[in-house]
């Protein structure tokens, strides 16, 4: 059993929780994810790790309510327990293994969309702790949906905010803001890391391809076990089938077949929360 030690409302339908999971906290690295199952009847939900405290033995997750399991998760309070919490899963971000001196020479830009701010944060924080200040663009619908601004400010070099409706920061999409930074302000980046909705990652990758900037994206497809067993998370990268859970979740954004990935992510859409579709023809 895994105890909820902190719960925060971040934005409409978006919550942050700290979970007591010492083994996961000890092993976690930027770029990895966990799977949460709240109780016997709950789904296994993959969530990217937002932060971890190896001493306290806690892992921070951020989630948006979507289906039945995440809605029930949002109703849980500090002191209550998740039945299952497993991780860290997937491979850490490539830069974790990179030579630090080489890494220091690189100018890195993180682009986060919506809840994507959560998985981007531990990566920027890790770099900051190593003396590397990366830039970041955080985009969201409007001011109310902006996540982790205070935390981000501490660890980034330059933090740029974009809102679709212009209620805060730049008015418009993150792609346009990135384009402006490169074209109008003459910013140069060696690497772009984009994490957010599939459609955002697709267009960021399209943009950076024009500028020939290496781009990493983090895929979050439908999966069951998260250990390579079900193959539900398969995506096409450079013409080859990969399992996002074990080969990723991070891939070269210029090689990912986003259209296929977006289509595959709708596979269970109609079923979510509609138990009536299940077990047609089964005598219960």
């Amino acid at each position: 059993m895994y105890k909820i030690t902190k719960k925060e409302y971040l934005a409409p339908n978006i919550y942050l929780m700290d979970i007591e999971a010492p083994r996961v906290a000890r092993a976690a690295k930027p770029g990895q994810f966990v799977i949460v199952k709240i109780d016997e009847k709950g789904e296994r939900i993959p969530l990217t790790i937002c932060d971890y405290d190896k001493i306290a033995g806690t892992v921070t997750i951020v989630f948006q309510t979507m289906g039945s399991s995440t809605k029930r998760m949002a109703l849980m309070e500090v002191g209550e327990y998740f039945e299952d919490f497993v991780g860290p899963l997937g491979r850490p971000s490539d830069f974790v293994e990179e030579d630090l001196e080489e890494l220091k020479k690189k100018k890195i830009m993180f682009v986060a969309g919506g809840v994507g701010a959560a998985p981007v944060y531990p990566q920027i924080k890790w770099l900051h702790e190593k003396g590397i200040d990366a830039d970041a663009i955080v985009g969201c619908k409007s001011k109310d949906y902006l996540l982790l601004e205070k935390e981000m400010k501490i660890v980034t070099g330059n933090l740029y905010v974009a809102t679709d409706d212009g209620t805060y920061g730049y008015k418009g999409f993150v792609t346009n803001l990135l384009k402006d930074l490169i074209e109008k302000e003459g910013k140069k980046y060696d690497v772009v890391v984009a994490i957010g909705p599939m459609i955002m990652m697709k267009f960021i990758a399209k943009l950076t391809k024009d500028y020939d900037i290496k781009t990493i994206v983090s895929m979050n497809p439908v999966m069951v076990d998260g250990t390579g067993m079900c193959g539900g998370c398969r995506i096409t990268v450079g013409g080859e089938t990969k399992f996002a859970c074990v080969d990723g979740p991070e891939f070269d954004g210029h090689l990912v077949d986003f259209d296929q990935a977006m289509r595959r992510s709708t596979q269970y859409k109609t079923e979510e929360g509609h138990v009536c579709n299940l077990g047609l023809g089964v005598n219960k």
Partner: protein
Amino acid sequence: MEIKKRVQVKEQAPEIRKANFEEVCLGYSLEDAVEESRRCLHCTKPLCVTKCPVSINIPEFIEHVKNSEFEKAARVIAESSALPAVCGRVCPQESQCEGKCVLGIKGEAVAIGKLERVVADWSRENNIDLSKTFSKNGKKVAVVGAGPAGLTCAGDLAKLGYDVTIFEALHKAGGVLVYGIPEFRLPKETVVQHEVDNVKALGVKIETNVVIGRTVTIDELISEEGFQAIFVGSGAGLPIFMNIPGENSNGVFSANEFLTRNNLMKAFKEGYDTPIKAGKKVAVVGGGNVAMDAARTALRLGGEVHVVYRRSKAELPARAEEVHHAIEEGIIFDLLCNPVEILADEKGWVSGIKCIRMRLGEPDASGRRTPVELPGSEFVIDVDTVIMSLGTSPNPLIATTTKGLQANKRGCLIAEEETGKTTLEGIYAGGDAVSGAATVILAMGAGKKGAKSIHEYLSSKNDIQI
């Protein structure tokens, strides 16, 4: 001498069972069991035992059944097997113990599997405590994976006094017994959970939600957590796909995904959050036991189901009993045809499976006749769902995160067959992680050998230190 026929076992009628997830085979009554046990000849050299991977003293437990001494029979089986109610249901007895039964030469073999099952079920229903207390030797052993190999290895080591912890990646212990084999062949709550609890009753600890290689590595288990030996029974969990066009279309699933959603996550039950795509017309590609399980599950979820297999009925790798049950339930077998492409509609959903007809050519290395394509014979089966059941291979995670632990090119850990010894000192392995996908009982046999080797290894280490 006329050989008496085997006592028939009762089953749910096909037209009823195809719409529920209750067990198909209802098992023997005690009276049936006693009657069947009388058929055993009690051979002086029982060949049945030699073919049992865990060497159950079969004639002895059958003798007890004959005398209606079910508790004694259960104790005899418990000496060799931790999972008798599971094995009584899913072992391929026809090619093991029963395959060697002398009665089988001219008639029907003794129904050893069904007798094992009735004894195990009786023992469970009557709350017979088969656990014993063993004096502890204070040595810590870790077991990776709570499937048939791991549970068996852990149980045997606990009986020898070791302090054993099993690390399981999923949230429930049982491995393929909980995620793979469906409820209608192997009930989870009653049978599997009870046998897992029996292993725990021997003093074995099971820590779920620990992915070895990610949460903690093999090296850390030794250097930081004080384990003196490790048995890796992590199974063969990686699904194999065909690499044909259209395979990533919506509505194409691995049998692993389909069965895990249904069995482990209980998608078929009301109130459970995990969804499953049942499909109205389903093609299951493959002919093994897993393919039969997937096909019969899809049928129970309301689909018309085709099994697409490239050889003929005689070569189907599934147990004859499973094929027979599938046919009875109305599964359609499209034999001697092989998928070449999966067709999708404009939204990317499966609309059909294009197959090519095959004929059987010369026998290959395995002795089975090789299927050969008949040029120009392509045809399309209209389906909305395709389930790929072409086998599985071991997960590379442990081999790739443990320096010096070698695997072959199929991803199977390299381990000596008789001892389970790997390329690293103190690390043993067995079951599907070594053999590739095989059977529950072979994995249990490997778990037993692993336990014996670990005991010998740690005992000799002790001697040297003294």
